[in-house]
């Protein structure tokens, strides 16, 4: 019954190309000899050389990876449990909690950052990795929560009930039925959360301490002094690495299947 035209694929292809176009330009300009991004002055690798000599950049990258992993993991747990819990247990307060937990993405980051700064110093939480992880988790939870919730809406309750009728324990039914069904949503929620954390500048500026810098903060402060091709070079490298990871995981999957 389904249409077998090529049109959808063409559409997907075009939009994908548009998404990658700005990145392609960033990559091209990372090889630019000139410091000014508006002028092409010939091919050069000097920005990569400069980058590899900059140890602080790699420290920042490590911080960002830890931060992204911790906050998206925390958000994955909190968001998933919350969404599943709310679908099973109807408390009167669920609606309010759901609403409040999504507020962090409703408020401009700048004021959220400011409020966190004051609040954290009020409760005596030192600024550094801990405060960063907490702040990032707050805006990551809604992504996981909403995607999992959207997926749960359509899942047939009868699956779980059937499992229970066949003698599966509550936990067993949860792990065997619910989790596999919502896993794609959890994963995409966590991926989004990671991406948001890996990209956040504004909230991080406020809650970071003197000893922790994240990569986006580093990039942002460097952008202030001019878009040096060095930043293009970092982005190119990051892009290449993620792409390699993606292809790698695909290959692994293939091997597993064979």
């Amino acid at each position: 019954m389904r249409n077998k035209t090529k049109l959808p694929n063409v559409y997907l292809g075009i939009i994908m190309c548009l998404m990658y176009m700005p990145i392609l330009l960033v990559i091209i300009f990372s090889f630019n000899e000139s410091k000014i991004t508006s002028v092409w002055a010939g091919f050069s690798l000097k920005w990569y050389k400069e980058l590899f000599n900059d140890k602080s950049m790699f420290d920042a990258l490590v911080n960002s990876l830890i931060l992204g992993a911790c906050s998206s993991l925390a958000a994955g747990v909190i968001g998933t449990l919350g969404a599943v819990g709310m679908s099973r247990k109807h408390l009167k307060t669920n609606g309010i909690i759901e609403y409040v937990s999504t507020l962090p993405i409703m408020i401009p980051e700048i004021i959220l950052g400011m409020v966190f700064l004051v609040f954290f110093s009020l409760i005596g939480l030192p600024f550094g990795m801990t405060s960063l992880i907490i702040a990032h988790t707050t805006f990551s939870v809604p992504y996981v929560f909403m995607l999992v919730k959207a997926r749960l809406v359509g899942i047939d309750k009868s699956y779980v009930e059937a499992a229970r009728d066949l003698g599966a324990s509550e936990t067993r039914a949860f792990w065997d039925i619910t989790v596999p069904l919502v896993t794609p949503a959890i994963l995409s929620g966590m991926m989004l959360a990671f991406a948001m954390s890996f990209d956040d500048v504004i909230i991080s500026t406020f809650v970071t301490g003197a000893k922790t810098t994240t990569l986006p903060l580093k990039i942002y402060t460097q952008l202030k002094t001019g878009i040096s091709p060095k930043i293009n070079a970092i982005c190119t490298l990051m892009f290449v690495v993620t792409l390699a990871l993606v292809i790698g995981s695909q290959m692994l999957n293939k091997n597993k299947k064979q």
Partner: protein
Amino acid sequence: MKNKKTSKISLAMLAPIYIFTIIFVALPLVYMFLLSFLKQAESWGVIYEFTLKNYLDILEPIYLTTFVESFKLAVITTLLVVIIGYPFGYFMAKLSAKWRGRMMLLLMVPFWTNSLIRLYGWIIIFRANGPLDKILMFFGITQEPLKLLYTYPAVVVGMVYALVPFMILAVFSSVEKMDWSLVEASRDLGATSFEAFRTVTLPLTLPGLLSGIILTFVPSMGLFFIADILGGNKVVLVGNVIQEQLMKAHNWPFAAALAVILMLMTSILIYTYRKITKVNELEGIL
């Protein structure tokens, strides 16, 4: 017995989100709410004295205008995001499992590169005599540079570009789990493909569409750096005003009041939208 245990487990599942939300979201926001009723100190900080001045100030025509402008841009952005993102998520969910995984990752890769950098990519494209101008002029579509950078359309492109993945992922995750036999059934009963889409597919994917809309509309009300970078700071949104009040005028109470109103506005919109769509949803399924 069974029920009691179930209930306990469910409660335990709810605990993390309750505790986390109350401590780290609700309390800071209560602080912000209180802040919006305080007075600005002469040079720095706040005075703990109750006032409604901050809310009265918002009624100044210029600040009302910024709310209207933000709303307008958010609506335009969300509409475009739906138009581009919904079909994308839909088609993507219909691909084979192998390609679905690939597309998903392809979609995520750009978002692990810095968003500011990606915006600078657009600057390169839009720049006078940049790649876009060169192509258009080569084909004789335009005769001279368009000067697209620092204009409203440039801002819209930047916003759509930044937000469309949220819509795609949300739609994708609800289309993917959809029961296609319902569509086939309706086609068998003589529905045209458009009718089948309207009466079956759309209602079934509505939750995904809804969360996609929330995930795009809501942030687009507050995003300010896109208007700054691609719009040359000339499109004034609530986010920009908040940023300026906070960082340059250090009038924190006024910034807080603006944020409270912004929050209320988006909340009301989402609430109404939910109310409306919930009705449709029931109609669609029954």
